[in-house]
């Protein structure tokens, strides 16, 4: 990594902007993969953040935006990392307009704090993000986080209604707004969602909200094999059930289990249970605890990061059998253990366990297999000692356009350089 240090004069300027207490040297704990930045800057306002970003850009310093730091290892290692711009102090809920079912919140606010505030009026941001106690609004947006609730409520792109971002030239730009329905101007909230902080730093966002459910019930449905699980999932999707979530869990040891979540009135839930039991073999349906919806997060509770890899995959819902069977074959061939959670949206998460060399081979084979079927595999964690493997996979024919967008918004390549697709 680039060993140059930050000139003292620049450090003093950062202190002038954010106050001397909010600039400190980085430690190894602040490293992003192998890259250790030199300075942590914690602005207290949007304007301070924009000003600090402008100064970094002018000084040619590479900036790593950081929220709760829970997903900093997602994406490729940065090609340069001089400065962490932290949103930790931008943590306020600006306005919960509960009667309008909207909220405007600063980027550094944790998901847990946000959800607790919304719950006071019986509402929620309808998204089950990983590690809500630490993850922030800016972080889940930048990584386009989503879980089991996505099936019913959509992704963050469908929930965000407005955003303010700081650009490398110090501009603070807003787009969208505070109302649910709005087509004035370009939809930059969608552009910035999932951009991994490479186009601008999110300082605040507005979301549409949903009511908390009146009641919920979860059922588990056991299957003898992957094909039976696939049949069940497709039958549910083609039925009149109004389920909120639907997931299937697979691993190299046990037969698959699917779970389905219903939300609604007591009478509505009872009727749906009845329908579910006619749809699946009744003996296979058992009521389950809501804690099973933490299965995706549980995949991340591994003890040895040096023999573990995590990936997200995206397939067509009908490709579940094919994909899980391929995964099993590849894993057997490379002698790695595996576990996967797949949602009915076609998105899934895999954990692989094995020697770094075997993990690398398995991931490469799996990606090749998926990309050959118009699907994708994104690497989220790998052992430090594993040979390099691009986090994102093959870009499509829109790569030149993506580079052009990046170039227009961040011409000096200041933000998270090298971390995104194909070197962006």
């Amino acid at each position, binding site marked *: 990594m680039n060993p140059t240090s930050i000139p003292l004069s620049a450090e003093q300027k950062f202190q002038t902007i954010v106050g001397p207490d909010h600039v400190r040297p980085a430690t190894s704990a602040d490293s992003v993969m192998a890259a250790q930045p030199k300075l942590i800057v914690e602005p207290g306002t949007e304007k301070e953040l924009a000003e600090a970003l402008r100064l970094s850009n002018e000084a040619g310093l590479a900036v790593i935006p950081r929220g709760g730091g829970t997903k900093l290892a997602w994406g490729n290692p940065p090609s340069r990392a001089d400065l962490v711009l932290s949103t930790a102090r931008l943590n306020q809920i600006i306005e919960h*307009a509960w*009667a*309008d079912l909207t909220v405007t919140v600063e980027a550094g606010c944790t998901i847990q704090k946000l959800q607790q505030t919304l719950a006071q009026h*019986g509402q929620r941001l309808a998204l089950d993000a990983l590690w809500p106690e630490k993850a922030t609004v800016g972080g889940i947006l930048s990584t*386009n986080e989503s879980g089991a609730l996505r099936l019913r409520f959509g992704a963050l*792109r469908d929930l965000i209604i407005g955003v303010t*971002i700081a650009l490398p030239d110090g*501009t603070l*730009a807003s*787009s969208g*707004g*505070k*109302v*649910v*329905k*709005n*087509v*004035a*101007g*370009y*939809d*930059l909230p*969608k*552009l910035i*969602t*999932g*951009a991994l902080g490479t*186009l601008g730093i999110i300082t605040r966002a507005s979301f549409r909200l*949903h*009511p908390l*459910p009146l009641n919920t019930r979860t059922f588990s449905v056991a299957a003898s094999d992957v094909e039976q699980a696939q049949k069940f999932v*497709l039958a549910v*999707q*083609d039925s*009149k059930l*109004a389920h909120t979530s639907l997931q299937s869990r697979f691993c190299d040891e046990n037969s698959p289990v699917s779970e389905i979540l219903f939300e609604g*009135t007591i*009478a*509505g839930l009872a*009727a*749906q249970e009845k*329908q579910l039991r006619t749809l699946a073999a009744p003996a296979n349906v058992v009521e389950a605890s809501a804690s099973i919806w933490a299965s995706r997060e549980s995949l991340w509770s591994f003890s040895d990061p040096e023999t573990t890899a995590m990936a997200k995959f*995206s397939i067509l*819902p*009908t490709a579940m059998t094919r994909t899980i069977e391929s995964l099993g074959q590849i894993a057997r061939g490379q002698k790695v253990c595996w576990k996967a959670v797949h949602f009915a949206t*076609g998105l899934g998460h895999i954990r692989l366990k094995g020697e770094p060399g075997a993990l690398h081979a398995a991931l490469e084979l799996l990606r090749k297999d998926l990309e050959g079927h*118009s699907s*994708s595999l*994104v690497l989220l964690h790998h052992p430090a000692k594993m040979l390099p493997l691009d986090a*994102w996979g093959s870009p499509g*024919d*829109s790569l030149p*356009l*993506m580079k*052009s*967008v990046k*170039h*227009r*918004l961040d011409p000096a390549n200041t933000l998270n350089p090298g971390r*995104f697709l194909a070197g962006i």
Partner: protein
Amino acid sequence: MLPDKPMMNPSILHELRAIVGERGLISSPEELHTYECDGLTNFRVMPRAVLLPASAEQVQAIVRLCYREKIPFVARGSGTGLSGGALPVENGIVISLARMNRILEVDFPNARAVVEPGVINLDVTARIQHNDYFYAPDPSSQSVCSIGGNVAENSGGAHCLKYGFTTTHVLGLEVVLPDGEMVHLGGKTLDTPGYDLAGVFVGSEGTLGIATKIILRIVKRPECIRTLLAAFPSTNEAGAAVSGIIAAGMLPAAIEMMDNLAIQAAEAAVHPNYPNCGGLLLVELDGPVAEVEALMTHVDEICRSNGAWEIRVAQSDAERALVWKGRKSAFAAVGRISPNYIVQDGVIPRTALPQVMSEIDRLSQENGLRVANVFHAGDGNLHPLVLYDRRIPGQEEAALALSYKILELCIAAGGSITGEHGVGEEKKSMMSKMFAEPDLNTMHLVRCAFDPLQLSNPTKVFPTPRLCGETPGEYIPHPLETAGIAERF
């Protein structure tokens, strides 16, 4: 004025004809008149030619030629847009996608359909309803408007309260960029790695390129649909009932509101047999029968406790269809009670409804112009219809000014100038009231990434001409610049 030089010389016309064939080219002035405006009829510009390509390859060939010759182009679907998005530009051509109207693929197990841009919105549902699926976005013009136009405008409709907008239902796009390159944005699977450019393209009003294929999400029909009509003394009580429904934690499929003038118009046009009242609410719930019935009882109670004096539930599909026909034909129906009208679609936070309504009332009286109101009440999307008579000198100008004042009320209330019709030509001057310069400049950077020469529907959306600063490669002056209208910055 834009320079008149490089456009439509006979050799270019010849080249265009070679791409699309005799049938695909319109250049005679009589026929071009059809294309001089869209649904916003008080703005008119004659295009130099209209092209009707039959394939993505033909679109690409036309756009390549436009790029080479620096000819601005405007894509057009069915021409039903209400903001002038498909209004031709001076010295430009119109590319009509009407002939590209095939549904290419329907994949029920994955709930996807692939269509060409000229496919009519309602035809998608017609094709899939035998399997009990539907295409959710339902703009009032859905029997004539095209999916390509819906993509350009990010069209909504009454049911987007629950189901989301066009952008929620577009998973991927094949796009011909303004330089003639073809790219694929998004895809059949979710979260394709990279920037969400499909999300940026939808709703960009034809300024970023032309979609030639669209991957749609289709939706299984709910087990049952119930539609309730409630008559209130005024829109204020109706608005309070809407707040009550939302506060009770319900998310209906649609909540629509009409004021007395709009009810009268609908009654005169299609006789939906609405109760004659000050504020009419139409609430639709869908889902499993047991769930919907439990919630419907609750909605009924909330309406009564907020002063509803008559409540009806549509008892059959035919009754339900009639209720919706009244609502969906409301714009056209206003033609029965006024020779001319202007429709806006500002959005407000729903809670600001009583205050904004009384302001609209005041403006209406001050200006001596009637304003009919039809809203998507669940999401605060107003549709004020300003009634006027073009034959009375000065009235059209007064009506237009009044409609802009209503949009200013929306902005002041923390809302938006448009919820589903788009900015287009009509509302671009309002953009600088809603957004600050840095906001617009940032949007413009995105535009420059897609279309550095600004050939694709130029002069729309943005309030003032803006040039793309640094262009990749050789610098080519923009026509506006050579004409001395704008300076490079």
